[in-house]
């Protein structure tokens, strides 16, 4: 019974037409929820959370930095999974997803790098440190750029998506290896011993706004992916009957 439901869900969400209907129903309430959650988290964190006893107010950038980093990482992993589904099971919706996930993820990676650098100046005394996390993020950005560049270089949209999907699959494995190898290279060269605030000891008054702004960022990411996927669906299926009907009915 459960298995059948899962299987039906897979097939339904795998159909671009069903996804379009589904997202039409979800977006009107998901969009405001995402915006409100994000704004609440950010405003609470930036304006009302208590200052850090060591770093003062400069630590507040984590309310942007951490959500951006987590979203960027999750986005790439999601892209790799979509890539696997597209390459192995040839699911059309997965191809569309690969294209929809990449731009926001790349933007989040860039935001994470910039905020990390801004945070680094008061904490480390320099904008850039080749520490394990910053380096991994930089490489993640390169890998996002690779996926987007490959996608743009291939004219046929389905072929482009499948090629990008394969690259993202390989990339996910690489992300994991890069993380460990970059940590290893830091021990080899005895790099900076400056550590950030221990995350386990974070004050709850600082933690809740962080969790909320993370959730808000993820929801915004989801909204962005849905909107992009819908555009891509319309452009791909523009010759099919249901899109023509949709256009004739005024787009809703």
């Amino acid at each position, binding site marked *: 019974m459960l298995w059948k439901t899962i299987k039906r869900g897979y097939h339904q969400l795998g159909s671009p037409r069903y996804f379009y209907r589904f997202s039409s129903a979800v977006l009107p309430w998901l969009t405001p929820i995402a915006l409100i959650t994000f704004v609440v988290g950010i405003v609470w964190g930036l304006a009302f959370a208590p200052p850090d006893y060591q770093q003062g107010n400069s630590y507040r950038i984590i309310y942007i930095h951490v959500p951006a980093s987590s979203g960027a990482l999750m986005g790439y992993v999601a892209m790799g999974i979509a890539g696997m589904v597209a390459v192995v099971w*040839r699911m059309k919706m997965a191809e569309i997803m690969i294209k929809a996930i990449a731009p926001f993820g790349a933007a989040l990676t860039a935001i994470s790098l910039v905020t990390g650098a801004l945070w680094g100046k008061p904490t480390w005394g320099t904008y850039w440190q080749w520490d394990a996390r910053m380096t991994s993020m930089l490489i993640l950005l390169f890998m996002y750029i690779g996926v987007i560049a490959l996608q743009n270089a291939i*004219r*046929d949209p*389905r*072929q482009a998506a499948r090629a990008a999907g394969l690259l993202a699959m390989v990339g996910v494995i690489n992300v994991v290896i890069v993380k460990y190898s970059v940590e290893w290279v830091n021990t080899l060269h005895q790099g900076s011993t400056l550590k950030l605030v221990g995350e386990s000891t974070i004050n709850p008054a600082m933690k809740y706004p962080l969790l909320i702004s993370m959730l808000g960022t993820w929801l915004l990411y989801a909204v962005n992916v849905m909107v992009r996927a819908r555009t891509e669906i319309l452009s791909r299926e523009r*010759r099919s009957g249901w899109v023509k009907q949709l256009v004739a009915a005024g787009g809703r």
Partner: protein
Amino acid sequence: MTETANTALLTLASLACERDDRVLFSGLTMQARAGEIWQITGANGAGKTTLLRILVGLHGFYEGRCQWAIPRLQEELLYLGHQPGIREELSAEENLRFACALNGQAGDLMSALQAVGLRGFEDVPAAHLSAGQKRRIALARLWLSRKRVWVLDEPYTAIDQHGVESLDACLQSAAGQGTLVIYTSHHRVDGRVRRLHLAGGQAEVVS
């Protein structure tokens, strides 16, 4: 043999393909049987090569159904693409030997090269051969061990009058032995050939 002769080897149902925002063909429905010769015609860019690539499994982006009644098509397929698959650094014999090893074909390479008129050129690097001669190297595989399905993209291009006649005879004799031959060209092998014409996004079986 008599049983398989009448069942369809290849079934296309509502096959449609678009490329670069253009519908190459749509609503293509046909059945091809063992022992038939199919000629695919159409203007340049009508989608002949793409259709053949769909048939042999090289192109996967299409709508509709393309089904072979052969469990493992690759075992029984002889495909010659738009480019003949000849590397200029290798001699005629080396090229042919590799193609045979890759495709699991056996037979006397020398007599196959003789059949396409390349005897005496077998050690010459393909770079020194003409376009027609290069295509003949690839065509030599038709004279080696038999496959049940031949898919040939423009086999007659750059082939001289004598070569055309011997290729005609080769296709006819293969069809006589139950091979399904599908090729693109404006040249008709003989009057019994069935023809599929691609034009203006439509595909129709003419004869």
